[in-house]
């Protein structure tokens, strides 16, 4: 450890060497890898389930309860439990992160679909669209702002919580926290916290950019040069946009 007393860990150029094992950039890459993998799996599970529940109205209690259950689960406890089942390694950390990410995605996908103007769905059906067409061409595009806000909030929680990977012997930015605490190097802990926070902000900004690209100007409100009195659109607000508090 070449940390000097004078330069805090975060600002020591030696810790920013690209490609070097144990450097901040390599931790970031690993951290993003865990985050991305967990989110991808969560999306693959939660989006189709949310779409099914939202489109059919069946099993709505699943979506509603998932939100509450998700908030109540302590991730660290869950990881410990999973380690006793699967041993140390990627699997327990990944499962915990996926379980963390599913509720916000599932709930907002469901809520997004439910909030779609029934008149538009009725018109779609009345013009001869079939169920799948209605879902893909009417319901999802109209629900996108809410679906994406769920994804954003999931991404923020996962990127903050992916630090638990270090507790099960893996890499990522959690290493800075765990090792810093073990070595009593608090500047290292601070470095870890700061980098995670910055990463969370960057991810959210990127997500916002994507949202701008994929959400139709007709519902995001961007098409609106003047306020319209008469048309009842789905409100283009983003309820429950994720907060960046590291959990």
């Amino acid at each position: 450890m070449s940390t000097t007393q004078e330069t805090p860990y975060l600002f020591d150029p030696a810790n920013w060497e690209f490609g070097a094992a144990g450097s901040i950039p390599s931790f970031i890459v690993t951290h993003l890898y865990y985050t991305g993998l967990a989110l991808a799996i969560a999306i693959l599970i939660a989006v189709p389930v949310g779409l099914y529940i939202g489109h059919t109205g069946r099993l709505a209690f699943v979506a509603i309860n998932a939100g509450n259950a998700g908030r109540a689960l302590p991730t660290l406890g869950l990881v410990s439990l999973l380690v006793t089942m699967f041993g140390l390694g990627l699997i327990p950390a990944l499962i915990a992160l996926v379980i963390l990410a599913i509720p916000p995605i599932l709930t907002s996908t469901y809520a997004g679909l439910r909030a779609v103007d029934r008149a538009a769905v009725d018109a779609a059906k009345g013009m001869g669209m079939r169920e799948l067409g209605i879902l893909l061409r009417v319901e999802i595009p109209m629900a996108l702002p809410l679906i994406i806000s769920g994804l954003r909030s999931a991404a923020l929680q996962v990127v903050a919580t992916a630090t638990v990977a270090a507790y099960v012997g893996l890499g990522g930015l959690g290493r800075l926290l765990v090792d810093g605490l073990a070595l009593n190097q608090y500047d290292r802990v601070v470095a870890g916290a700061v980098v995670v926070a910055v990463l969370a902000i960057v991810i959210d900004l990127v997500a916002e950019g994507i949202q701008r690209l994929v959400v139709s100007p007709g519902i995001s409100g961007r098409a609106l040069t003047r306020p319209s009195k008469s048309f009842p659109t789905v409100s283009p607000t983003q309820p429950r946009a994720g907060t960046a508090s590291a959990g």
Partner: protein
Amino acid sequence: MITFDGVRKVFPDGTVAVDNLDLELPTGKITVFVGPSGCGKTTSLRMINRMIEPTSGRILIDGDDVTSQDDALLRRRIGYVIQHAGLFPHRTIAENIATVPHLNGVNKKKARAVALELMDRVGLDESMADRYPVQLSGGQQQRVGVARALAADPPVMLMDEPFSAVDPIVREVLQAEFLRIQGELGKTIALVTHDIDEAIKIGDMVAVFRQGGHLAQFATPQELLERPANDFVADFVGRDRGFRSLSFDTAAALEVDDLFSVATGGEVLVLDGAGHPHGWTGPGLGSTSNPTPLGGTFVTGDSLRLVTDLAISSPVGIAVRVDETGRADGVLRHDSLVRQLNARRRRRAEAESTS
């Protein structure tokens, strides 16, 4: 032709929305469903394109049972305009209108061309093609709704209160444009409204529904006003139906008096050199150089309703008729008008009792 054959609809909760409906909607004409709220108009309309399935009975379009066809394909051949337009907020105006052509596999370029043509037809400027519904006024959205229903050129159109979401002035404009478009296209149209005046104005045939999904009367607007089948219809049609029924006949059969026939009140019609009427002069009226205005004139093609209104509102109780060039060619005193209207009513009643 759309045929309702003993159609009945009972919702799962036991509500009888439509009861034993037999009805024939003539091809190429506008049939209006009218009646108080909750009497089954929308339910009847939506059974035509199978948005609602009847509990019993059949609905036929040109002899084919609607239930014998794939529902999505059936709907693509039936234009559907819903209340408040029901536009897709995430799609541009042109995309909204091109929905059905798109479903039918028409390519993008051609679908857009169709959309632009229809925008023109319903009186929307082409510059709105790439706007979104939120950027349009209520009346403009309603036009888009109509254009969208027309896009696949369906022979049949269903319209559920298409003009109810806009203010009365815009409604008049939309109704007039709708009648103009229908004059060009001649679709078979079923239109729902709760507004009896709208029904009488735009319907070729009017079906009056009453609570419980019963058909109270099916008739032309004129018949409805002149011979309501029962008290419910008479009540629904309204008090001044006698006056309104005068809209359906022209003034062609009215006998008028000479311009200078003897006037009991001493009033004199002032004409200019070309014979155009300028106003009235006489005791209590304006001078020859500054006569009391007529308040309007009529030609033989105008409705009896207009003539009656002119006679009533005229300062001297006399309606003035003019020829095509605007020259006064006769006067009609209100007592003579009342006599002629009475005779007309007697003739109609006789004609009906002998037929």
